[in-house]
């Protein structure tokens, strides 16, 4: 449903993406891995329209969407939960959720906000609080819930587990799986490569602005190059990893 061909994005003179080709199939969870500064977030921002590529094309549902504005892309069905969550901290939790459904004009919005709050009870409890007063995990839930209210076809999640306690990280990954099984395609950027590969169908690994490895998630989990560089283990402990990976 999403296809990047030879995308090159620059920050001023500095080239951050050096010809990215990738494809996201409908209904799947695709993960994008790599070290800091590899260009993962840049890729996400380019897809979401926050950055314009100098070269290459982005296609969504067979339509060229390169260089559209973020609000136009949202209307086409691409929602981004950016790194660092980007909640509106001076607005209430409820207002944040309402902003998630900003472009929608249908009558179902109210009922759906209620539904989302049932799913994340903490958001209901705190609905009239300023969103800035929530904890990190709660803010991440809010950011994801808010993005879902735009009814995206493709959800871009940029490091949803960043800075969160392990228990909450597990929660977040469960939620991502749920979202996907409810029919939303997910493109997930993660530092936490093992967790991400466990729930993903397909993965891409980036290094200094290029994609160096791609493959089925299960294969990547056992790929010695990936294991050594991104899963933080020596290849010798591969056996144990395979066991865990199941």
């Amino acid at each position, binding site marked *: 449903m999403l296809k990047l061909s030879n995308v090159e994005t620059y920050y001023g003179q500095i080239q951050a993406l050096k010809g990215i080709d990738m494809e996201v199939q409908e209904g799947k969870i695709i993960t994008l891995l790599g070290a800091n500064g590899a260009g993962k977030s840049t890729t996400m921002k380019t897809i979401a329209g926050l950055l314009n590529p100098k070269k290459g094309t982005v296609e969504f549902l067979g339509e060229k969407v390169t260089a559209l504005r973020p*609000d136009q892309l949202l209307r086409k069905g691409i929602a981004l939960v950016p790194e660092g969550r980007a909640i509106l901290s001076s607005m209430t939790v409820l207002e944040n959720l309402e902003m998630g459904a900003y472009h929608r004009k249908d009558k179902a919005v109210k009922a759906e906000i209620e539904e989302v709050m049932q799913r994340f009870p903490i958001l209901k409890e705190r609905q009239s609080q300023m969103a800035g007063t929530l904890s990190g995990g709660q803010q991440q839930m809010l950011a994801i819930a808010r993005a879902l209210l735009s009814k995206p076809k493709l959800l871009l999640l940029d490091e949803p587990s960043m800075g969160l306690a392990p228990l909450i990280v597990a929660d977040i990954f469960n939620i991502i799986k749920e979202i996907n099984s409810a029919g939303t395609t997910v493109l997930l950027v993660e530092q936490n490569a093992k967790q991400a590969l466990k729930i993903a169908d397909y993965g891409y690994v980036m290094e200094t602005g290029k994609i160096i490895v791609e493959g089925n998630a299960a294969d990547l989990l056992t790929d010695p190059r990936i294991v050594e560089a991104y899963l933080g283990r020596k290849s010798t402990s591969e056996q144990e990893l395979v066991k865990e990976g199941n």
Partner: protein
Amino acid sequence: MLLEQLINGLTLGSIYAIVALGFTLVFGVLGIINMAHGEIFMVGAFVGVMTTGVLGWPLWLAFIASIVVTGILGYLLERMTLRPLRGKKGVSHLAPLISTIGVSILLENLSHHIFGAGNKPFRTEFAEISIEIGSVSIYIVQIVIFVISIVLMIGLSVWLSKTKAGKALRATAENLETASILGVNTKKIITLTVIIASAMGGIAGILVGMAFNSVSPQMGLAIGLKGLAIIILGGMGNVKGAMVGGLILGLSETFLVAYGDSGYRDAIAFIMIIFILLLRPQGIFGSKIAEGR
């Protein structure tokens, strides 16, 4: 005497608040001080003088004319002097400030040219009518000004907190990028903000014309500086701060004139800023942490 001064202070303060709201809205969304706001306000006042004095229109029609003219000025300001500078590489963050100063000079000299240098009287049919309540006399003009300002302030607050466009404006003010990924067309919201701020300036222009019965091409600068003082006092970009700051300044100026030395009237705004900034550098309602931009 005290009650009369209180009413005078509230009238003046509510006008200041409206002027400051125009500054604070633009600052909140764009992060720049609109130095042309005072001159847009002055144009609004002249539209009031021309429509009521020369054309003989009723006051409500003068308000509408002023809103339309200053709204259009706001649109042109955004389209021609602010938008071309936004998001371009190599443009200093001071560039939009300078270009609004340019617009302010242009507007001041243009109206100097068209209307002449002197003060123009602003006549309203009820300018001299007052009502006596006990020993207190209140001018109808004061009531009209106060009511219009309060309605405007309440209207703006409700609009910002309850409507979709108002929430989009607040989201844009907090973070342009976040607002845009939530589907807000931030270009449109920015334009809308500058238009609303300018139209409020236009309304304030007529109110000041009515209050002081005089309009001149230079009035924009003085009131512009006071508006600026108020948003520093109340907290940059803060709507509540602009309202409260305006009332504080209006009341303290009035009481200083009544019970102290009227020569220091215009100094009080700036003395107050010095004190407030010493005690609360972020302004009365400002947040401690500066927004990251």
